[in-house]
């Protein structure tokens, strides 16, 4: 076929009349400007203040019923059934252009370097274009039993959310009250396209990455900082000197869950997730360094594994919701087992007892810190903590609302001794009429870590449907635990916070927040935040 004919066919196809589809979409956009100060601690003379100037824009987007596939049922007022296609995403542009990230630091010498070169972790906040999630969702497949998500999907094991570039599926098993879920893809890292740092596993140093440089004989080498000085990039958004290739490799992740479905007054879920990564080999020519370099990890005898597991966990959770007359009894229990560490790292159990206006919740919680499989902290002696908590809530709809919490944390030491920390807080709020609402809170805690005592008073005024004002004053006396730092001291900190919301139009609002803090050690610091909210939903 000639080029002209091809063009004619292409034009005909492109210009052919096709039915137009109207998609429903929803947007939530915010523009946030922040200006505040952080202290730069000085041993000699007063502290310096580092300015942070941040501008952030967020955009949440939902497009439903792409292709109008559910329009007929919707018009017939029938429950949704059959294929429906939708899109959900959340994107964020964040730029910090204050001294905090763009300033420079004087080192010994005196040598001045960009702060981001000395502290590569600052790259997380200097500038970011983050896709927090974004996926195409297909509902109603396989007789409405199968749901698919493709794109940057979110996965949650109950103790945190992570992002996965891949897909997830959920299948409702016929005739059985069970649903099977599966997720697979590459875990979102800071180095992923439009990556998000906070989805990474914690524990391996974000900078200061080292490579093993072999000595004259195998095994006599040493770990040295991977110095990018040898391959200057001169970037203003990342460190010019340090380089961390193990943090750039892909992390394949798979997960599977089995959850109850359509079970009344009871729910449970068990899940498994595994993340692994290839071992980084040579990061340059063999003769790049003085001594033989057989890879980022020592591998003279092939002792470096081809891959390593970063996370492998099983988790289970269950809850129930029963009634005993007016009393609602809601017990729950959750546990997570790290196969990589051969240890339970998280567990909790409790029960929420609820009557009309009162909620009482005793609970116990166990915590054993674990880290990314690459982190040496995993092999350190770590002691778990166990918390006992008692919470109370009063008032759901009336003029009065009250909360009270007490907790006790037990540290179980390796030598079979124990130490404790504990405390409590209580607060009360009251609707005062004429748009006014006020409240006071008190807090006291002591034991390992330090001691704090103080309180908060706050008032809110909703002058009209367009204007809200809110003020808060906090006074706390702090006595830090002196065992670990020579800086620990006693001081009183005060803080005043004032915020206002001006509703410009139905869903458009401007928020302003100002905060001034003072304490005996660090004098005063200020914070100002302005938010343009294009999808404003007022608090009740």
């Amino acid at each position, binding site marked *: 076929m000639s080029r002209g004919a091809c063009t004619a066919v292409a034009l005909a196809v492109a210009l052919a009349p096709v039915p137009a589809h109207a998609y429903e979409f929803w947007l939530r956009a915010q523009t946030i400007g922040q200006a505040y100060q952080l202290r730069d601690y000085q041993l000699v003379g007063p502290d310096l203040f580092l300015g942070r100037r941040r501008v952030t824009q967020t955009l949440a987007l939902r497009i439903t019923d792409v292709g109008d596939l559910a329009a007929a049922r919707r018009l017939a007022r029938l429950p949704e059934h059959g294929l429906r296609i939708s899109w959900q995403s959340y994107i964020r542009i964040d730029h910090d252009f204050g001294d905090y990230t763009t300033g420079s630091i004087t080192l010994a010498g005196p040598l001045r370097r960009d702060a981001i070169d000395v502290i590569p972790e600052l790259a997380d906040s200097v500038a970011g274009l983050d896709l927090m999630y974004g996926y195409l969702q297909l509902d109603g497949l396989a007789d409405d039993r199968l749901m698919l998500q493709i794109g940057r999907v979110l996965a949650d094991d109950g103790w945190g959310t992570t992002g996965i570039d891949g897909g997830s599926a959920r299948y409702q098993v016929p005739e059985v009250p069970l649903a099977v879920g599966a997720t697979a893809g590459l875990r979102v890292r800071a180095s992923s396209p439009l990556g998000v740092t906070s989805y990474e596993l914690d524990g391996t140093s974000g900078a200061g990455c080292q490579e093993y440089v072999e000595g004259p004989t195998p095994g006599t080498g040493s770990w040295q900082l991977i110095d990018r000085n040898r391959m200057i990039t001169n970037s203003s958004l990342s460190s010019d000197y340090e380089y961390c290739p193990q943090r750039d490799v892909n992390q394949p992740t798979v997960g599977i869950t089995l959850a109850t479905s359509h079970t009344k007054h009871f729910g449970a879920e068990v899940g498994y997730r595994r993340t692994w990564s290839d071992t980084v080999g040579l990061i340059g020519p063999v003769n790049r360094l003085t001594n033989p370099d057989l890879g980022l990890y020592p591998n003279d005898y092939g002792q470096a594994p081809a891959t390593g597991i970063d996370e492998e966990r099983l988790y289970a959770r269950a809850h129930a919701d029963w009634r*005993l007359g007016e009393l609602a009894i809601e017990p729950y229990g959750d546990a997570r087992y790290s196969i990589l560490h051969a240890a339970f790292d998280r567990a909790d159990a409790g029960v929420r007892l609820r009557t009309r206006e009162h909620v009482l919740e005793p609970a116990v919680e166990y915590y054993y810190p674990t880290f990314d499989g690459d982190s040496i902290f*995993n092999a350190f002696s770590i002691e778990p903590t166990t918390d006992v908590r008692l919470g109370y*809530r009063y008032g759901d709809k009336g003029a009065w609302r009250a909360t009270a919490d007490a907790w006790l944390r037990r540290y179980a030491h390796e030598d079979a001794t124990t130490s404790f920390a504990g405390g409590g807080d209580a607060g009360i709020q009251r609707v005062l009429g004429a748009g006014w609402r006020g409240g006071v809170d008190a807090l006291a805690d002591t034991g390992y870590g*330090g001691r704090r005592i103080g309180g908060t008073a706050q008032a809110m005024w909703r002058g009209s449907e367009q204007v809200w004002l809110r003020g808060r004053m906090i006074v706390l006396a702090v006595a830090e635990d002196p065992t670990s730092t*020579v800086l620990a001291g006693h001081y009183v900190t005060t803080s005043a916070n004032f915020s206002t919301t001006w509703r410009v139009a139905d869903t458009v609002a401007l928020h302003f927040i100002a905060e001034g803090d003072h304490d005996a050690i660090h004098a005063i610091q200020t914070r100002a935040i302005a938010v343009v909210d294009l999808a404003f939903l007022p608090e009740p």
Partner: protein
Amino acid sequence: MKARIILLLLLALCVVVAAQPAQPEDLDWSPVVYPLQRLPLIFSHQKHLARGAECTACHPNALSSQSAVDNLLPTELQCRACHPIDRSDPAKRATPTAACTSCHPNWTAGSVVQQTYLTPPPLKFAHAQHAQTKCETCHPVRGVDLATTKQLPTMASCITCHKDGDEERHCTDCHLAKLGGLMETQFEQGRLVPGRDGLGDQHGPGFTNNHTQEARQAGNTCNACHDRSECIDCHNGVVKPADFHPGNYLALHVVDAKRGKDCSACHREESFCVACHERSGVGTRAASQFNEIDPSKRFHPIGWASPNAGPNLHAQEARRNINTCASCHREEDCLTCHSAQPGSAHASPHPVGWRGSSRCRAMDRGNRRMCLRCHITQDELGCDWSKH
């Protein structure tokens, strides 16, 4: 002891058996879904049904109704089918009763009859789709006189048949949706929040700061009303949530962090904490004015990390909460002493009984890269080697 355990188990069993779903209570009818009703009437469903009246005789449009906003209340026309009402004779004596005051209490001649008023519920509902279901399945009016909100179905009763109704993707089958598919929750009569519907997601005081369990529940319905971006705005946001972190939390966080409060739901130590600590001059790099060698510039007390020069307190602190260490120190700081490499102090950071332990074997099997940071040579790897 055994008897006490058995007693406790029996007690727990009694609670579970007794705690079965009970009859609906006042709180089960949301005032937002079923708002204001004004029923200035005298009427008895009980008596009418006892005399054989059919529901559709008085509510003839119910079977064909397609919307929850349809007014299905009987008009005088339906009443006249049995009651010989005569407007020119308001006090008419008849059987069945025909006097105006028989149904309209306190009405006096010449006054305006008080109107019956039911605010349409903000729901999608088509009676026509439920024509095969007996009316009394959803409207238990047989034992009552005037039907009120209590004779309207609760959500718990709806999902006895509509079993998918407990899934967040099906919430908008009945509830109104706004653009984008999220549930509409803002109404003139109030804000629609989860109630005692058996889904275990009831919101209450302190819910903003304490919703872990609701969010963890298998099949939770959070995203029916809340876009996922709302979660991220707090848990992964750029603005400090003032309700959670009060003013000057920068000064206050020291105590929380040292105690081992888990901050990982929102923050990562290796980027968030380290970056700020380093930039604030309390890190471990050259930018800090602290110097552990110069006694006048110490950050930690004397003998902090030396068993020879002091109490070596850092070991105890690290065991209790290594996250605190990790918020300033990178791994190479630890490796200065805790490594099997030449030149290191060869101080073992491992717990007692590490060698040969199941934890050691699991980690060696799972990711030997971690081991290679300290143990280089072949004979040092694995969990069975011993230092000569």
